[in-house]
């Protein structure tokens, strides 16, 4: 069973964001929602994460989701390492992921407030990648990371995407290209109809 939106409509108050949206995620690979800000990308991710209920239509999302939010959303009272293990990841696994993303052992034991913005972002990425999950949602995951750092994270996401679906939201073309993402153009709200990858953008 794959992840799928079926004729989903959704509105924030009086503002319709989705109208009869149908979208089937491929079983693997990265799909990149592409469009100007305010075009419903984050809302689509929230629907897929189960954080919003559609007003009508059906969301089929089998298995467990993992996510990098637009903000880091780290628990300020836990160390970086605990922030990754708190979602159910074994400590060894968590440590391995965090070190591979370029964090040091000292940073693992620090509270989020003591880390730089880029380091906090890496903790959030590690939490999402290390968590046992069936699909991954990335909302501007490389925000605040310099190019060298996000490029270093690409192989890990690509590895995840080799056999599970990943949805990426980004404004940076190179990030989508580096992940060989299928670009799904969104023109603006309300998003409507069947979403499918653009042939050439």
């Amino acid at each position, binding site marked *: 069973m794959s992840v799928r939106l079926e004729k989903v409509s959704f509105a924030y108050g009086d503002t319709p964001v989705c109208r009869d949206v149908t979208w089937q995620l491929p079983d693997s690979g990265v799909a990149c929602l592409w469009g100007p800000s305010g075009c419903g990308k984050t809302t689509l991710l929230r629907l897929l*994460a*189960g*954080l919003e209920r559609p007003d009508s239509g059906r969301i089929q999302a089998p298995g*467990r*989701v*993992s*996510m990098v*939010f637009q*903000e880091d*959303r780290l*628990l300020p*009272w*836990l160390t970086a390492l605990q922030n990754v293990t*708190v*979602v*159910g990841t074994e400590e060894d696994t968590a440590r391995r992921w965090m070190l591979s993303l370029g964090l040091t052992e000292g940073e693992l034991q620090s509270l989020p407030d003591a880390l730089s913005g880029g380091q906090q972002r890496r903790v959030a990425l590690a*939490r999402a990648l290390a*968590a046992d999950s069936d699909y991954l949602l990335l909302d501007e995951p490389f925000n605040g990371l310099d190019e060298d750092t996000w490029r270093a994270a690409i192989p890990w996401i690509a590895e995840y995407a080799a056999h599970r679906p990943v949805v990426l939201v980004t404004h940076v073309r190179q990030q989508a290209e580096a992940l060989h993402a299928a670009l799904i153009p969104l023109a603006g709200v309300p998003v409507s109809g069947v979403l499918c990858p653009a042939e050439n953008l």
Partner: protein
Amino acid sequence: MCNKWRRPLTAAGVALFWLGVWAVCSHLIGQELLLPTPWLVAASLWRLMGQGDFWIAVGMSLLRVLGGFAAAVVVGVLLAVLTTRFSLVHTVLAPVLHVVRAAPVASFIILAYVWLRAGLLPAFIAFLMVVPLVWENLRQGILHTDTRLLEMARVFRLGRVQRLRYVRLPAVRPYLEAALTTGFGFAWKSGIAAEIICWPDRSIGQNMHNAKAYLETPEVIAWTVVVVVLSVVLEWLLRRLFRRGEVAA
């Protein structure tokens, strides 16, 4: 070395200064009944502390106030959870909160004296003072818990217990601590006030009332010193307890 001693020395200096002011004032007035000298009060306190009844009264007063305080914390937490969960409960109970907060303590003491035995009254008054404080503070804490963190916990499927332990409790902790430390001071002072009005047996308030009746001003002040010292010591203990908890968590 110099810095280490600076604060205690300053504090001692300030204390000495005010004791001096007190001594000078009482000498100028020259009437033990109106304002006894500090040493008369100290002597009176020393004499009281030598009596078994003193310690029983202090212990019983503490027990009553702590009992009311503990019950208030339990009820306050329950009310905070219920009123944030169900808005109807909040609509119904909110006026009670406002009434209890706005009405003077003394009127509750007199009113409750009609219903309750004198021995239960201080506990009840302490309870009444602390419930709104815990309730309202914790309610604010719950309402101000970062929804983004709660969403994160939902997406990553943290269980009920884990959500409580790692998201909810740490988020409301500062609110609860503030409520408990200020609440304890409230409970203690209003509990003693209730004792002074309704004189339960074996209590600080009854002793203060008797001392006043016999025009023993040094003894009234000595008892007041006891109340103040206990208030400071217990609040300090409470704060230490929280700090210990923080390290453990």
